[in-house]
């Protein structure tokens, strides 16, 4: 579909060992006055109070070196300082302390479509934007065709931008942005819009940039993109570095930070409530475990998962049937299973005994929050539950692709012709 693909000039690297971006002990604080004295009158009336302000430490001693050709992700929750870091690297904010060196030409913008004017046509905007990004008027004109071809917007050139859909706008902006002759690109939260086909095109373009030795710094909430494209990632929280490492590790930590790490140990109250249960059997706890037996609240998809319940028997029960049901966010039952006759004997439990039942399963779940409902039933035709706890625990599955499906079945394709 792309008419012409202009090859990227390989980045000249005079000294390959020199990092593209070196951040050493960088700190940045914003001074937020308690009351903003925005007028002379207020200042005149309260000449001394104006010294009161909160210091918001947006960045606190950040250290990282980003190598040439690296695709580096920066993740963090809202307000963690990740965008501030990007703005410091971009030279939009000044830093208070530390050293920040950049080797190579830096792309001047951190967001797509900066400087787009809704009143002007796509044609004008492309030229203006290209000049803002550092091209000359002549270069902008020369590359105009390529830009439009890449954005696939040939038919909408003379439409004002305000009549564009947001996706079309992003396509245009991205197409202009990749024309910038920068060795280091900084990108803040892109590609949230744009249809799947164009997103794929953008990611292909990223790969091309990467092969050409460009360095890309990328801020996002999208762990999928981090895991898919980044060589390394960094997690920051409250202005501090939490970790720098492999994208999957960082994504896991990010989700842990977001959804809480290891789960609530059940409170004593609840356990006692279980003991006091009048019934013959009480489920006193339920949780999810990782492969290595740690209680978890979040898990990457495709990682082996274990759903667990702790059952206290108040009377002797022979061959009870343990059941697990998983429901997703919207309440659909995604999976349900029981230890019925197919699983063989479960054993006999005496009064006062406690059993821990683990359901180990290949994790074919797609990203969502899943709730666990464990149940215990007596052997027999009726199989009425001795105890059942709705949504006793939950786990967030992250990573992987968002496919729209509720499970990611293991699969292969076979294509043949008749």
């Amino acid at each position, binding site marked *: 579909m792309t008419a012409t693909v202009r090859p990227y000039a390989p980045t000249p690297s005079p000294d390959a060992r020199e990092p593209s971006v070196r951040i050493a002990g960088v700190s940045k604080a914003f001074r937020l006055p308690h009351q903003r004295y925005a007028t002379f009158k207020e200042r005149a009336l309260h000449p001394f109070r104006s010294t009161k302000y909160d210091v918001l430490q947006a960045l606190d001693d950040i250290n990282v070196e980003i190598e040439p050709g690296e695709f580096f992700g920066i993740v963090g929750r809202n307000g963690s300082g990740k965008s501030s870091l990007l*703005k410091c690297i971009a030279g*939009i904010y000044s830093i208070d302390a*530390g050293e920040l060196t950049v080797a190579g030409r830096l792309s001047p*913008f951190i967001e797509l479509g900066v400087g787009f004017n809704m009143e*002007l046509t796509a044609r*004008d905007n492309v030229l203006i934007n290209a000049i*803002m990004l550092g091209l000359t008027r002549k270069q902008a004109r020369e590359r105009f065709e390529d830009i439009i071809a890449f954005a696939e917007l040939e038919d909408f050139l003379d439409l004002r931008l305000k009549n564009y859909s947001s996706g079309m706008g992003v396509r245009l902006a991205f197409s202009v942005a990749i024309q910038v002759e920068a060795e280091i690109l900084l990108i803040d939260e892109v590609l949230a819009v744009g249809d799947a086909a164009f997103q794929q095109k953008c990611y292909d373009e990223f790969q091309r940039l990467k092969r050409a030795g460009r360095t890309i710094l990328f801020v996002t909430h999208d762990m999928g993109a981090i895991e898919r494209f980044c060589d390394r990632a960094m997690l920051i929280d409250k202005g501090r570095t939490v970790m720098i490492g492999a994208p999957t590790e960082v994504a896991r930590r990010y989700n842990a930070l977001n959804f809480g790490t290891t789960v609530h140990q059940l409170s004593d109250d609840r356990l006692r409530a279980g003991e006091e249960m009048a019934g013959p059997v009480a489920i006193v706890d339920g949780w999810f475990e990782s492969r290595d037996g740690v209680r978890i609240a979040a898990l990457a998809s495709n990682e082996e998962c274990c759903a667990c319940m702790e059952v206290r028997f108040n009377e002797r029960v022979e061959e009870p049937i343990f059941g697990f049901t998983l429901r997703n966010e919207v309440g659909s039952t995604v999976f349900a299973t029981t230890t019925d006759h197919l699983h063989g004997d479960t054993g006999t439990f005496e009064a006062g005994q406690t059993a821990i039942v683990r359901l180990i399963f290949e994790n074919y779940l797609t990203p969502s929050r899943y709730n666990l409902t464990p149940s215990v039933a007596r052997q027999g035709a009726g199989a009425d539950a001795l105890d059942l706890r709705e949504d006793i625990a939950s786990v967030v599955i992250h990573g992987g692709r968002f496919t729209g499906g509720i499970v990611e079945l293991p699969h292969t394709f076979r294509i043949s012709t008749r």
Partner: protein
Amino acid sequence: MSSDSVARQVAPSALGDDARRFFNLTVTLARTDFKLRYFGSVLGYVWSLARPLLLFGILYAVFTIVFHAGRGVPHYPVYLLTAIILWTYFTETTSGGVTCLLNREGLLRKMRFPRLVIPLSVGLTAAFNLALNFIVVLGFAVATGVEPRLTWLELPVLALLLATLALGVGMMLSVLYVRFRDVQPIWEVTAQILFYASPIVYTAKTYPASVREIAMINPIAAILTQMNHAFISPSAPTAASVIGGTARLLLPLGIIIVAAVVGLWFFMREAPRIAENL
């Protein structure tokens, strides 16, 4: 914060390190602004001409019919019109300068570029307007009997002096406005005072002898007076003769230079933190 610990090219600045990009950006922003100003209006550019012409019509009517201000002034309508377009340039640059940084917040927060581009582009947009308006004035002047003379060559110099003053003030106001929102009404009032204190609806000869030399320290007064002499009527006094000696012209000239230097210095001082203070 010690600036020497911050390494190259990553700190925001007023001037940047790429002169070509600085120039391209200034021109592009100015062009876009100019293009957008009357975008979507049927008459387009005519409106930017209509405003000074309308002001001219009103002031001409009021000050010739009611106050007889122009009596005895050769080519008074030409003087009034020229003074108005020069004044329009000055207010567009300065009043536009007040809000320019805030209007460009999106750019300032999302892109690294020399911060000075913004007030300069405002001045450039106003200069486009001035140039177009001046063509009309020129036609008007020649049609009403003003004769072309070699001293017209002084006009670009005078325009440059006015631009220097306006940009100096504009730079200063733009960064002040980021911190204090009352700069806008204060400047509106100041501009009104300056309008009547400057020889726009009258000429410098109208100043009472007692205040004439003081009033002429106002650089706009000096520029307009010299403009009258060089452009319209050779019989009109030069700025030097009204202020009382060529040496005294150093005062308005000094004000222009101080405004430009202080404005630039202040802007450069504030430039690194404009984005976060917005």
